């Protein structure tokens, strides 16, 4: 055990002594942040203590053992996984102090206003315009597929500030107040029946220049920080063997012998092997991150996870046969009002899992785009032939 570890564990004990872990949840979380035990590798005053990132798990384990509340990371995944690292990398001191604390405690939920009807994989094609007006910007445009926009207090948003230069050059990145005038959020119903995501219409929304992240025209570089972290956030995860959807299938297999056939058995074991390989890949990725040597392996993990989730959930329906014909709830009356706060693969029916898994190869960059990235950035193969690199954004076919 190292000194840094001893020191952190002592601080955890001090936090627990001063604040009842079974008491007010938000009060405890704020105290945890102020004690530097939120993300220990961040600087003091910003939820951390400049400690090695590896030691966070020590802190979390001690807090969990004491029954301390969590910040419900799944509910605030976009804030934790994407907004925070971007603010940390590109934000001013003042911006970091304003946003990181309530982001981490979950006082304020974040969403990601990147995709538009005309710009998904090709994010750099986006057309939401931001025009300067004194010390403000006036923003007009439409965003789409925005998860949690209906709960979010803040959004990270990429806009076009210069349509006359090639598309990668004319973008600027902001933090947007979702309560500002001119922000309209409409639920968008999805394949599973309910609405996790939304359409967001921005009409003459005023954003103070103090909410800009990075320089004017540097939006693409800032967005890269967000997207790199998105892939890590979606791919990673340390879970025990037989976690997630494979656990559901294994349970069905063990408890319902009447469903077993030799062909299904070999398929089950093929998927079990793939699931375990993907789990070990995630563990190895975590060990790399902990050792301070992150690699591109996160892309492999996300690619494998998406395919596997789809294959396992599809197999589960086949295995169930007649029961696979039934669905739990299309929410036809309530999809606008009763909105899920996080994706719960295991809390619902196999049909839901099968359908929701289809999103895994689309959200956070499609599997095709991921393959392009791996081929070009990891393997060094030539880029796609591009017709859009030197043309001013306004002249591109849309």
């Amino acid at each position: 055990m190292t000194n840094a570890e001893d020191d952190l564990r002592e601080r955890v004990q001090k936090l627990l002594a001063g604040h009842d872990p079974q008491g007010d949840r938000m009060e405890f979380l704020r105290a945890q942040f102020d004690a530097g035990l939120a993300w220990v590798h961040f600087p003091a005053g910003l939820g951390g203590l400049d400690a090695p990132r590896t030691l966070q798990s020590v802190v979390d384990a001690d807090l969990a053992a004491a029954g301390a509340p969590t910040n419900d990371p799944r509910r605030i995944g976009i804030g934790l996984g994407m907004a925070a690292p971007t603010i940390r990398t590109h934000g001013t001191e003042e911006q970091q102090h304003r946003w990181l604390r309530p982001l981490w405690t979950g006082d304020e939920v974040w969403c990601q206003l990147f995709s538009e009807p005309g710009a998904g994989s090709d994010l750099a094609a986006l057309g939401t315009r931001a025009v300067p007006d004194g010390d403000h910007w006036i923003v007009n445009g439409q965003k789409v597929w925005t998860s949690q926009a209906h709960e979010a207090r803040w959004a990270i948003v990429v806009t076009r500030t210069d349509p006359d230069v090639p598309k990668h050059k004319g973008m600027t990145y902001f933090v947007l107040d979702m309560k500002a005038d001119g922000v309209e959020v409409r639920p968008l119903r999805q394949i599973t029946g309910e609405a996790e995501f939304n359409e967001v219409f921005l009409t003459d929304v005023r954003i103070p220049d103090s909410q800009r992240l990075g320089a004017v025209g540097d939006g693409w570089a800032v967005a890269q920080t967000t997207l790199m972290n998105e892939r890590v956030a979606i791919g990673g995860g340390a879970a025990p063997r037989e976690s997630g959807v494979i656990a559901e299938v294994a349970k069905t297999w063990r408890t319902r012998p009447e469903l077993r056939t030799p062909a299904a058995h070999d398929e089950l074991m093929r998927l079990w092997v793939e699931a375990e390989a993907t789990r070990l890949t995630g563990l190895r990725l975590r060990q790399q991150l902990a050792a301070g040597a992150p690699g591109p392996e996160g892309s492999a993990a996300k690619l494998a996870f998406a395919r596997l989730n789809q294959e396992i959930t599809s197999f589960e329906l086949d295995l169930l046969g007649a029961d696979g014909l039934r669905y739990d709830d299309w929410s036809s009356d309530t999809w606008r009002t009763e909105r899920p706060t996080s994706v719960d693969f295991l809390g619902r029916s196999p049909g839901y899992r099968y359908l929701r898994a289809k999103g895994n190869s689309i959200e956070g960059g499609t599997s095709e785009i991921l393959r392009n990235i791996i081929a070009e950035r990891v393997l060094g193969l030539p880029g796609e032939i591009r017709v859009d690199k030197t043309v001013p954004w306004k002249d591109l076919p849309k």
Partner: protein
Amino acid sequence: MTDLLYSQDEELLRASVRDLLTARAPASAVLARTETDELYDPALWHALAADLGAAGLAVPEWAGGHGASWRETAIVAEELGRSLAATAFLGSTVLATAAGRSAGADDLVERLASGEVTAALAIPLSTVPGSGFPDTVRHSHETLTGTVRNVADARTADVLIVPALADDGPALYVVGAGAISRTAVVSLDLTRPLTDVTLESARADLIASGAEAVAAFDTALITGAAMLAAEQLGLAERCLEITVEHLLTRYQFGRQIGSYQALKHRMADLWAGVTQARAVARYAAGCVADADPDAAVAASLAQAYCSLVAVKAAEECVQLHGGIGFTWEHPAHLYLKRAKADAIAFGTASQHRARLAELVDLPAA
């Protein structure tokens, strides 16, 4: 949790092994040797096993080894998978050493660890971990009689470790090469030749019997499966590398063929598979190094996964090289032959899936 990364020492070991193999066994030399009577290069073996100490890595110092572990041994296996140089590594350093250590055959293990002597474990290469103790060789009147087909690395072995059935059950014996007759098999895999071994009233020394013999046999197979996964990983990595190189240098329709998305995506998928194979193979090596109770699961998982990745990598290597990949001259076929033979060695992927099903309680019926 098992460490799935490579340590600095392991990377140093890898670099020395790779330097040696690149200098002494380039692809052209490996191919040329497959058509001579001297497939195994004794000088290369000496440099690898004795000078670099590869043969003694998994043997403790008190037993005459270098006191490293199967984890480091796996690094050598990865490099041999990249190179395909024919050596007695799998038969002697992995199978015979694992069996000998488990059986407490300290004298033999010490000689194997020095690299001066090589041994083979007299079992068919396709033997699956968890399958019953072999019964094709019988012990009676102090001698062994029987035949074992498809034995790896027996061709030049000085000694054989032979599992046989004695009157009172399973037992392991050591037999000198002079006491057996060996018939060379025309093997699918040109760089790991197999041999049929026949024993006719061969004089044999007992090294373990009963439960100890069974344990030594099981340990050897699980260790073999884990080390083979490392070899498959190295092979897959090398095939991916060669193929990417070719995609960058070959032009068709006025473009590098690596600029075609259909091919880029195949390479990306292969890279993802290799990335996962690395985690799986490292886990298996770690488990056998630590004698972890999960070793049997880890080894079967590794075979069920890495076999498929290695075959896929070699198949992609052939296909994406086009006509050149179909020639004798290009090494792609050597990789394909090794990958396919490795996929059968110690059981096929589907046999390992069946074994895993038993180990993790997902019964077939």
